[in-house]
């Protein structure tokens, strides 16, 4: 399931809903991304996430379908927020459920790596010097490429 939303989410409730009524599920893996307080001179007081409505949902659904092709998942969930967020706020939740932990853990890792390089979101940071767009990280491309083979 894909949710792209401005509002926060309740992690416990989302994970409960993911597995409720399916006793085949033996393990749930999850990743939660938070807004980091960089501190120091490079102080980021907030960030704003912009996205491409339509393409975002489409890309997330493609990534989710690919994870389901590669691993035997019983359920999966991606929630990604947009709008203005402050340090400590949740940005993203990825959760995968499977009879066994290996599939759940690997699929969860795959989903967050691919999401970072494929889903059309952009972060801009509020700093004392003004607004600054976050540059893409080469390490993120490399993390996604690990899953190519």
């Amino acid at each position, binding site marked *: 399931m894909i949710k792209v939303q401005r509002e926060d989410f309740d992690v416990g409730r989302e994970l409960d809903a993911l597995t409720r009524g399916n006793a085949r599920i033996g393990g749930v893996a999850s990743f939660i*991304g938070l807004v980091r307080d960089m501190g120091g001179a490079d102080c980021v007081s907030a960030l704003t*996430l*912009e*996205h*491409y409505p*339509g*393409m975002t949902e*489409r*890309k997330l659904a493609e990534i989710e379908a690919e994870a389901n092709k590669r691993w035997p998942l019983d359920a999966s969930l991606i929630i*990604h927020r947009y709008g203005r967020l402050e340090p400590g706020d949740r*940005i*993203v939740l990825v959760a995968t459920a499977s009879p066994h932990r290996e599939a759940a853990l690997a699929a969860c890792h795959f989903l*967050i790596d691919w*999401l*970072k*390089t*494929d*889903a*059309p*979101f*952009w*972060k*801009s940071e509020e700093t004392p010097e003004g607004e600054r*767009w*976050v*540059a*893409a*990280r080469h390490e*993120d491309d490399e993390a996604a490429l690990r899953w190519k083979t």
Partner: protein
Amino acid sequence: MRLLYFAWLRAKIGTAEEELALPPQVHDVNSLLQWLKSRGPGYAEALKDLSTVRVAINQDYVGPEHPIREGDEVAVFPPVTGG
């Protein structure tokens, strides 16, 4: 053709969206970006380094040689930074 711009490309170009008739010299992504550059200083500044520009047509990533047709939704944006 419907053109969409996101993130700092939108800020530099100064608009999020525009509806344009396909000019005769534009037939693929590469020729579109070259033509856009000539439309004003904001466009030229936004598109001066094409290694930091990504293009999606009808919501799928495409390369420089992908054809563009009348009626396409063409989005131009920097590398993504979500997650």
